[in-house]
């Protein structure tokens, strides 16, 4: 029997039914909508900044070159427009006498800084993870919780602590830091400024990433493989390089993925420690070389994309290590010896004291010094060399050496900024957390779909783009004739949301993938609506990861500077206010704000941890 070919009406009906079936699945609707929205929010700023690299800016090098030498630098002005375009910025940046100074050296420095930061964070965080999870180290619980403090604090605070500790008149031509003034020890220049301190500070800041990611694998790793190697008399180094390292390779790659992009876009650390990178160069070139500065931002973005591609490639080759199931209950702990477990524990207590506790004590102490960096009290013991003025001055601010500022308890600028920070952080956490969770859910449901894969990647891309470049791109996008969002909370919330969705989407996706489809299917059979399924089944089961997906954007947003510094003025949010006071040399205020931030984060983390059982450790990197 021959089947009659479908008529046009039938085809239409089939198409309609297919569409109906497609849209009847909430995950498809989520993916379609978020795919479109995220494509726009990710691509539009890139387009805006790309356009800026071709634009001719008044009073900058591109205008000068196109006017002075129109043959070498031809320009194009669309009819009736005052805005011209040319390749002058590209030609000049890549070929002028300043190319080495403006491009190649900062680029080289940036790559070095990012690479060394990765190495430091992986070695320090990875080794610590090994000690905590695979040995009988003492004080594990204390060390584990204190180790993540540097990540909680704004990254440049460690840089400021570094300066306060190691600078000296003899080497850096500044006032003596603590080490020089109290112990008369002067550190060499390479230790005080440049690549080494910048990489160390960033490495220490991001070491918690490595600790949590690598620690997660160590914790679940099947020790049978290593034991088999030991039985076969395999040398220890061979076991390490052929078994242990390949097992933790995915975590190392994830750490590289997260740290490289973040370090590349860091502005404050290299700025404070006098190291020239693409980020610092972007800021310094912005007056005369605006278009060329935008090219630097594009270059940073290209590296972000390249890292994502590299990660995709390594993901494919990771198949050969799927023997690691993570299901074994056998975790053997190396014995550090009776003395060793205490000695090594004590060493880490000292190290983490300087990376986690000392900065907080130092911030608190700074707020009682009569002048910024004036440590008279320490070597005279004279209580008159301490003051509470930075906290409680409420009048005569021009006469009390207050630089025109009210004490912190009465300082409206600081508390207004605190309110702004809370607003932005809560809004970003709610929107990024919700969108990220939905993406995780939808992608896990359609895990073989190319579109789902695309949405997952486009949502992750902004995280890999350096913060400063993302900030620049959004500033350019929203500074036009129709929309001018500079210095509005709207802009900060939009940018923060786009940048922090990956935190939530990764945490959510990884946990949703563990969730069997049967659970939801049972509810579908009973015709339970999607909202009810989500709130009664999915969310309660994955509560911990989902809350982490909200907490991470919140905490990161609280102390974010590089992303927001070009989008609002100081006094709008705490991080820009902190940076302002730091640059002005009013360390009492910046230290006080740091304390406020750290306390806020710790209180929130503790409250959420007590209420829900979720903590920061569980969320990083999913």
């Amino acid at each position, binding site marked *: 029997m021959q089947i009659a070919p479908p008529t046009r009406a039938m085809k239409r009906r089939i198409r309609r039914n297919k569409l109906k079936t497609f849209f009847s699945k909430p995950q498809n609707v989520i993916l379609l909508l978020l795919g479109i929205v995220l494509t726009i929010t990710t*691509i539009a700023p*890139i*387009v805006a900044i*790309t*356009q800026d690299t*071709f634009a001719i800016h*008044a*009073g*900058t090098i591109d205008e000068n070159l196109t*006017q002075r030498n129109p043959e070498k630098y031809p320009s*194009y002005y*669309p009819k009736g*427009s*005052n*805005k011209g375009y040319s390749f002058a910025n590209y030609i000049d940046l890549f070929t002028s006498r*300043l190319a080495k*100074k403006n491009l190649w050296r900062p680029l080289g420095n940036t790559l070095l800084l990012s690479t060394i930061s990765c190495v430091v964070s992986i070695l320090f965080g990875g080794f610590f993870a090994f000690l905590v999870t695979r040995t009988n180290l003492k004080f594990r619980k204390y060390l584990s919780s204190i180790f993540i403090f540097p990540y909680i604090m704004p990254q440049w605070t460690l840089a400021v602590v570094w300066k306060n500790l190691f600078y000296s*008149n003899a*080497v*850096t*031509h*500044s*006032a*003596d830091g603590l080490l020089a003034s109290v112990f008369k020890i002067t550190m060499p*220049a390479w230790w005080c*400024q440049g690549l080494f301190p910048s990489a160390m500070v960033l490495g220490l800041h991001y070491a918690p990433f490595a600790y949590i990611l690598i620690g997660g694998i160590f914790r679940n790793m099947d020790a049978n493989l290593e034991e088999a190697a030991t039985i076969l008399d395999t040398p220890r180094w061979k076991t390490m390089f052929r078994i242990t390292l390949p097992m933790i390779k995915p975590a190392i790659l994830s750490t590289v993925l997260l740290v490289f992009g973040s370090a590349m876009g860091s502005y404050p650390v290299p700025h*404070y420690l*006098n190291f020239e990178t693409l980020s610092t160069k972007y*800021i*310094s070139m*912005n*007056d*005369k070389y605006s278009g060329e500065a935008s090219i630097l931002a594009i270059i940073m973005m290209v590296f972000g*994309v390249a890292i994502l591609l590299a990660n995709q490639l390594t993901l494919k080759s990771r198949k050969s290590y799927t023997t690691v199931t993570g299901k074994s209950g056998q975790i053997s702990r190396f014995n550090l010896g009776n003395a060793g477990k205490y000695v090594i524990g004590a060493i880490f207590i000292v190290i983490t004291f300087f990376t986690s506790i000392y900065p907080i004590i130092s911030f608190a102490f700074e707020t009682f010094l*009569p*002048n*910024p*960096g*004036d*440590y*008279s009290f320490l070597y005279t013991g004279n209580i008159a*060399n301490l003051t509470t003025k930075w906290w409680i001055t409420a009048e005569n601010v*021009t006469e009390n*050496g207050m*630089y*025109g500022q009210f004490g912190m308890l009465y300082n409206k600028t600081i508390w207004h900024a605190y309110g702004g920070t809370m607003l932005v952080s809560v809004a970003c956490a709610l929107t990024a957390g919700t969108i990220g969770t939905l993406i995780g859910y939808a992608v896990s449901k359609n895990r073989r779909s190319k579109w789902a*894969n*695309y949405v997952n990647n*486009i949502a992750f891309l902004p995280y890999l783009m350096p913060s400063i470049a993302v900030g620049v791109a959004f500033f350019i996008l929203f*500074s036009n*004739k129709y929309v*001018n969002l*500079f210095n509005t909370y709207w802009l900060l919330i939009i940018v923060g949301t786009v940048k922090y969705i990956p935190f939530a989407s990764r945490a959510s996706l990884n946990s949703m993938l563990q969730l069997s489809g049967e659970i939801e299917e049972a509810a579908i059979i009973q015709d339970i609506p999607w909202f009810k399924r989500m709130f009664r089944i999915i969310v309660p089961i994955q509560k911990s990861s989902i809350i982490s997906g909200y907490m991470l954007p919140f905490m990161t947003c609280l102390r974010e500077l590089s992303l927001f*510094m070009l989008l609002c*003025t100081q*006094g709008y949010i705490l991080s*820009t206010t902190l940076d302002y006071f730091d*640059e002005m*040399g*009013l360390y009492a205020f910046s230290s006080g704000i740091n304390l406020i931030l750290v306390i806020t984060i710790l209180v929130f983390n503790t409250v959420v941890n007590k209420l829900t059982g979720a903590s920061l450790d569980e969320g990083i990197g999913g």
Partner: protein
Amino acid sequence: MKKVLALVLALIMVLSVVACGSQSTETKPAETKTETKPAETKTETKTETKTEEKKDEPKADAAPLSLVQQVIKEAQGLTLEELAKKAIEESNGATFYGVGNSSRGKSALPKFIEYLQSLDANYTLNFEWQQPKNNKIFDQLTADSLKEKGTFAVTLIQDGNQIESKMVRTGILDTFVPLDWAKANGIAPEDWKGYLPLQTLNKVFEYNCTGEKTFTNCWDFVAEGEHGLFMDIDSEIVGKNFLYMLTADKYAGYLKDAFDKLDPAKQAALQPVIDELQEDAADLGLGENGAYGLAWIKLWVESYAAVEDDGPICNTLVQNSATDQFGLLVYSKLRSVEESDSVSKNNIKVAAYQDGYNGIGGYGYCHYMFVPDNSPLPWTACAFIAYITCTVDGFSAWGKDMGGYSSNPEVAKGTEEKYQHSKGGMNAAGEVEFECKNDRGYDWWVNNGQLVIEDPEYCANVAFTVGSWIEMLTKYKVK
């Protein structure tokens, strides 16, 4: 994934090209000047901002005045009180947005509102004052200028070079010269050439005097082994303008004179650098002493230790441990130093105040007042500018501290009478307690202290000649 990314990248490029070609055609006449050469543009802009000149010599192709320019033209003929009445009419109950490089606009606005309320008790005005960092003020004003009606009513802005090339030549900002201010300076508003300065700030050479070292000549600051503390020229652009100005005939002449007063040994050490730069000076079209300017710039850029802000420089220099250190910093920073066992203002000496000192004592730059060409409240902006430039109370937000000098001679005099900065370092008994805090005033600094004063036009003209030459120098790094 690779395909998707390739597609995305291709899309970016296509969209960029499309975006490049689809720019709005709604442009203001004043903005269509970017195709002209700088010299020509300058002439045109001057014609535009000097409204009275236009009236006297009408040109067939002269651009019509914008609404704000018309207001300014009228406002320049009114006294402060008349302007205040116009402001009350215009902005009662409104919100006034200002943007500036100085945070003190925020302190000045409540006083301005009080003044308007003294004329009309029912008057109210909300206000917001923004102080962008990292040179963003220019981007912010440029972005705001694209709107028909802008956000910002007024701006207080520094860096004459960028103001000239990015703000004035492009028609984004307009100059308003208050009648009372012009009278105090003995001219008519329309005769004033240039922008309206609110005040001049000075950055001066100061050195720590806890050791034996003294600095008696400005060339001592660039001698071998010296590393002055200075805000990096890429962080604070007015520092670059200072260096540009050293190549101007007047200041290059100051440097030559100071060089001539050095002892022969020091001259011999410096002479090769000056000789080497004669050719560059000629190439850059500088005057006969241009090489002295270039030599000082080269030695300074290659030796100064960069610091993020003047605050930390001051905090460093006043410490006992900063023996023999020196810096070039905002003079007024001394106002907030508190005495302690290891910190004292008496650890500081202002180089130019010392007997026998020769050469430049520092540099001065202005805070200028402008009305954006799309200001939503132009009358109120003009009244605010008149209030802070023509009254001691209005200027007090800045005038209460040393090191900031009003451009209005009457206000400057009134400020000195009220705050007595020239005796700022005296104690109640009239004895000198902190010599460095006795501010000798603007006239002294310009005439005796050889303060290098920023000239926006000169800076804009050499930004891509001398400026590019400076960028080729290698900055100092601690070793």
